[in-house]
């Protein structure tokens, strides 16, 4: 059964739709890449999937057992975080918060999970370091580790490679692929067509209306894809 079912959804601000007639579904273990130009509604769709925004019309169904507290999220970095005094460990651990409920403190198993995820992303030795002193790639891995702490089923990534250099970016994509191979469903908003075609299993291309949804093998032969990737190269 599909993890998320999006039925004829319109999204927008103050009643004005940005994206119309969205129909797609995400199955367990999928790696969905959402691509499209700036302002095409990718981030709005992301916010809606996360329950931060309501749909204008249509319906998003989450399959049974997928609760808000089981979704991990890698947001774009905010201004506030750039000079935030916090250690890597504090930040990663804060991903476990949704498992706490009304309990005020973290349990032993949550702390173990946090160090497990730090090891997985190769930031264990940074655990006592200050977040604001890390490089962009390291910061992104910290936030990814936090997202992993928050989820066991689904992870949403909002342009994870923004502002990173090519080597770090490739590393990050590899890590995300590994996470996906571990059975966690990935939904990623991205500008990077090349990476999307390389790693994703499904592509959703939106530009105010859905232009394409399906497997990436089918996407590669469409006109939409050719135009989009060519257009990207011309720049």
């Amino acid at each position, binding site marked *: 059964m599909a993890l998320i079912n999006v039925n004829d959804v319109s999204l927008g601000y103050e009643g004005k739709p940005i994206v119309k007639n969205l129909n797609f579904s995400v199955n367990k273990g999928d790696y969905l890449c959402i691509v499209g130009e700036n302002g095409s509604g990718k981030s709005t769709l992301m916010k809606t999937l996360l329950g931060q925004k309501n749909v204008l019309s249509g319906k998003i169904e989450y399959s049974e057992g997928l609760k808000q507290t089981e*979704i991990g999220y890698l947001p774009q970095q905010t201004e*506030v975080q750039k000079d*935030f*005094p916090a250690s890597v460990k504090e930040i990663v*651990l804060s991903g476990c918060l949704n498992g706490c409920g009304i309990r*005020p403190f973290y349990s032993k198993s949550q702390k173990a999970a946090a160090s497990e995820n730090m090891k997985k992303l190769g930031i264990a030795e940074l655990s006592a370091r*200050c977040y604001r002193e890390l490089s962009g790639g390291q910061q992104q891995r910290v936030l990814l580790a936090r997202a992993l702490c*928050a989820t066991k089923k689904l992870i949403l990534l909002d342009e994870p490679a923004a502002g990173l250099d090519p080597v770090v970016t490739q590393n990050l994509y590899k890590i995300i692929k590994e996470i996906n191979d571990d059975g966690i469903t990935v939904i990623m908003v991205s500008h990077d067509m090349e990476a999307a075609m390389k790693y994703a299993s499904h592509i959703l291309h939106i530009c105010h209306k859905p232009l394409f949804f399906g497997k990436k093998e089918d996407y590669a032969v469409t006109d939409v894809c050719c135009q989009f990737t060519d257009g990207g190269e011309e720049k």
Partner: protein
Amino acid sequence: MIEQLFNYFSYPFVKYALTAGVLIALCAALLGVSLVLKRYSMIGDGLSHVAFGAIAVATVCGAAPMTVALPITVVAAVILLGINSNKKIKGDAAIAMISVGALALGYLLLNIFSASSNVSGDVCTTLFGSTSILTLSKTDVILCLALTAVVILVFVLFYHKIFAVTFDETFASATGTNTKAINTMIAIVTAVVIVLAMNLVGALLISALIIFPALSAMRIFKSFLSVIISSAVISVICAVTGILIAILYGTPVGSTIVAADIAAFLICTLFGKISKRS
């Protein structure tokens, strides 16, 4: 000088002032870290003006200042922190608007209706808290103690949630933490601390009490927990130093505490720069 100090300590009002001062400084510093990091530095200023307006209303109506100021300030705090999330009026503009509005209306009311012969003196006392901390009664101190206990308890119990909401509200809310409830709680506690602190440093200088220790601590320390603890320690030290100097040399208590906070900030900045270089 030490002898003179010991002499002063035999007076209960000095003990009360010190106790209350330390407690308020502690609360303000705890909250300050989160408020500064959330870019709400001006909220202390804004809310203190609201409290000033409320106290003016209370004075005019002949009601007890605290019983009027506390609920009004709490409501204002919840509204201010709520406005930021709907973005029609930006947070800083909203704070400035409410702050200036309440200040003006409060002064206007006092001027028109005041029974006192020395209006500007009253206003000055409320704004700069010139002597009120030296005139605290035992009940005031006990009230202070109780409220501080509540603030610290809230802070310990919700520490991790406050951290999550401060560091990344979107993430916290997207992964299922009730950020609205946490924000409202922070707003309420802030309002309570500000109304409390008005007794100590007066409405105008509360911002300093909230901002300075947090900023000082951030110059040196690098994890959230250490920043919070050291900010509390710095704040308490500055409050004690300020009050003692004020008593010894007869300077205004509020301004002296803030001067101590500024000094601490400069020292911390210097220390931070040196330790970064080495």
